[in-house]
């Protein structure tokens, strides 16, 4: 009998504990998710923040890409939703609209620095001096030739331009859930695409659709996961050319080399000065309705924006972030601290 009673008691407690955990729990740890480009920076700040402020817990940082993070961010208000979304591109109007529909009406946008996007290949492969139109021609579904659009005939880089190395075209780009993809399209593919007279003649929508179409014969590989996946591809395929953030390249300089774009070598200096064309600002978005409910949100933002965390010679710069200049930093800090909302 005792055995049965015990078993029953355990089963009952178990069932009861399931039932009682159902109500929402208050949360005192900041929850962040989003862009895998921002993830390293965000994680470093979170960890230092937790170590430096004894009164706050260490924020928790998830990935999922800019799109994934913003979708989670816009799921609603409450302790079961995230407080901050990291993004390597500005929030889209449609996403903001979706936020508002779900009750996330107050959003604070914080820009915290810049990142460059680099084209990297294995250090034992040929070195690339790319122009935007090379990249477009290598990856597009159709390319203009003698006034007509033809299915992409290029299989080797040297067929596009004789100055490029004579190796197979294998281009590894981030999937559409990555903010990096959008920047890649806007700053490299579109300028490259626009340089053709045939494209210039198109109307706006047709042009965007034409330029963004990527070839589907396996020469362009989209990576939905983290950049380590891109790196693994590069490790296994000598000919592959991968697209990722400068910070990622920086930690793997021993096995990678970067391509110049329009003749400029990507570096902290050339990206900071805007000379290197493929760079973008990085953001995070704060749910203002959680400020005061989840402790430490504004302090985290302030800490993130402070000069000693994200300025010159800071841990974030060591991790590959390109700092904002002082004037920009002051302006953004005061806007964020006065909790200026997006409309």
């Amino acid at each position, binding site marked *: *009998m005792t*055995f*049965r009673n015990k*078993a*029953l008691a*355990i*089963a009952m*407690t*178990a*069932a009861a*504990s*399931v039932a009682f*955990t*159902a*109500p*929402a*729990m208050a*949360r005192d*740890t900041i*929850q*962040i*998710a989003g862009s895998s480009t921002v*993830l*390293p920076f965000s*994680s*470093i700040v*979170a*960890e*230092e923040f*937790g*170590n*430096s402020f*004894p*009164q706050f*817990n*260490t924020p*928790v*940082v*998830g*990935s999922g890409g800019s799109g994934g993070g913003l979708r989670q961010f816009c*799921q609603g208000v*409450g*302790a*079961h939703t*995230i407080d901050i979304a990291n993004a390597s591109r500005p929030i889209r109007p449609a996403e903001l609209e979706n936020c508002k529909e779900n009750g996330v009406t107050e959003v604070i946008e914080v820009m915290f620095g810049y990142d460059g996007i680099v084209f990297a290949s294995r*250090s034992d492969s040929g070195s690339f001096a790319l122009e935007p139109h090379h990249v477009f021609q290598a990856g597009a579904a159709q390319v203009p030739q003698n006034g007509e659009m033809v299915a992409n005939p290029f299989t080797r880089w040297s067929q596009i331009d004789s100055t490029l190395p004579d190796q197979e075209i294998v281009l590894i780009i981030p999937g559409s859930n990555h903010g990096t993809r959008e920047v890649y399209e806007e700053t490299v593919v579109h300028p490259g695409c626009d340089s053709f007279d045939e494209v210039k003649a198109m109307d706006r929508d047709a042009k965007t659709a034409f330029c963004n179409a990527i070839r589907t014969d396996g020469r362009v590989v989209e990576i939905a*996961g*983290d*950049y*380590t996946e891109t*790196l693994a591809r590069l490790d296994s395929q000598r000919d592959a050319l991968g697209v990722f953030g400068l*910070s*990622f390249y920086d*930690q*793997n*300089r*021993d*096995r990678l080399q970067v391509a110049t774009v329009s003749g400029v070598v990507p570096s902290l200096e050339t990206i900071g000065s805007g000379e290197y064309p493929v760079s973008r600002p990085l953001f995070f978005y704060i749910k203002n309705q959680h400020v005061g409910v989840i402790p430490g949100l504004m302090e985290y933002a302030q800490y993130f924006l402070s000069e000693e965390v994200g300025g010159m*010679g800071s*841990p974030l710069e060591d991790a590959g972030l390109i700092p904002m200049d002082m004037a920009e930093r002051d302006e953004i800090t005061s806007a964020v601290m006065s909790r200026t909302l997006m409309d």
Partner: protein
Amino acid sequence: MNMEASNTESTSLPDQTDLAKKRDLMQQRVSRSLKRRHNQETRFKLMGMAAVGTALAFVLLLFVTILSKGLPAFWQAHISLEIYFDEEIIQIDEKPVRMVNESEAAFNQRMLAWQTQLGFVNFNRIILDAISKEIPEARDYQRDAMRLVTSGERFGLRNMVQEDPSIIGTSQRLWLLADANVDVWMKGNINRELGDAQQQLSARTRDWVDELEAKGVLKNRFSTALFMNPDSRSSLASAGLAGAFVGSLMMMLIVMFLAVPIGVASAIYLEEFAPKNKLTDLIEVNINNLAAVPSIVFGLLGASVFILWFKMPLSAPIVGGLVLTLMTLPTVIIATRSTLKAIPPSIRSAALGIGASKVQAVFHHVLPLAIPGILTGSILGIAQALGETAPLLLIGMSSFVASVPGTPFEQSTALPVQIYLWQGNELRNFFEARTSAAIIVLLALMISLNAVAIWLRKHFETRW
């Protein structure tokens, strides 16, 4: 010709030779077919051995690669420094002591203020002072010098002062964790021939590392950081498994306390008490189907039901535990049922025959005999849950968590997810080994769980 010959022979020597010939023929046929059958057997044996051999070779390959990559990561570069807790640098008030009539809140307030004051102390200066005792020119190249020690050690020193402020003004020799890139350089995980532009450390720091290593100041020592610290991204060398381990442990406990009782209870009911009809057949089929559902589906369920519906916290071991419970339940039920089935009906009949009720027969006689089988099934189910990653990714447990969870409602990760996260770290040269080390820890846990299961089976097994 032959025909004729045989004809003449058969006429001259009748039956006997004919029979002998037939026997010969038969024997030949048998021995031929025997040879064929023997060959068949040898072939099959060889194929079997080849199959086993291939499987073993793969397992061996797996272990050799993981061990050869991971074992070195258990030893990590440490630097021995004479740390002087300089009272000039650490200028703080007395550590507050709780007064007799002070409320807890007021004391916490004062403690927090003191901790904040301590937080402003620049412990990097103390580390730099200590480094310059080993390398005189370190002061002129502060940035290069600070690359020797991992950045998290300044918080380690702060915690030492926080624990015991009386060490201010004294000095002691400590082994501090060296930077991840120092470790990479010392172990030769980066090509040492590469030029400056491709190296992570500056030429000056590299020379210092070699010099200090020769002096014995830099040394590979057993890394307690790997076990004692939570994950880290700002101080890569101190990234450890503690947070993930505690998270996994909590989930295992939840699985143990939910899946095992519920699973065993339903199995006993279904096997011993439930009437055999269409409904119980349907339930049985569904349990079997549930066992075959891919684990990621349970993750989706957890995300939509537990988090969005019940509004439970994200990335919390409680949600992970519940999801894994759902996943483990069918395994436990099926294992328990087959154990119960294997117990001879004579035991039940004997119990019923001397007047026991059905409940008594089951709980006093059948269940005790079934315990080893149930335990084995449960442990294997839990071990399977321990290694599960996919459903956890969907409930936010793949986040970066830099603290050890105190309750199942706090954010945490799990061991297999930690492996996935480290595998994705940018600093491949350091984390390749660290990932394999984490795999070794997980495998060791799995193997010990399975060993316990085997031991239980052997120890309590009853044979009929």
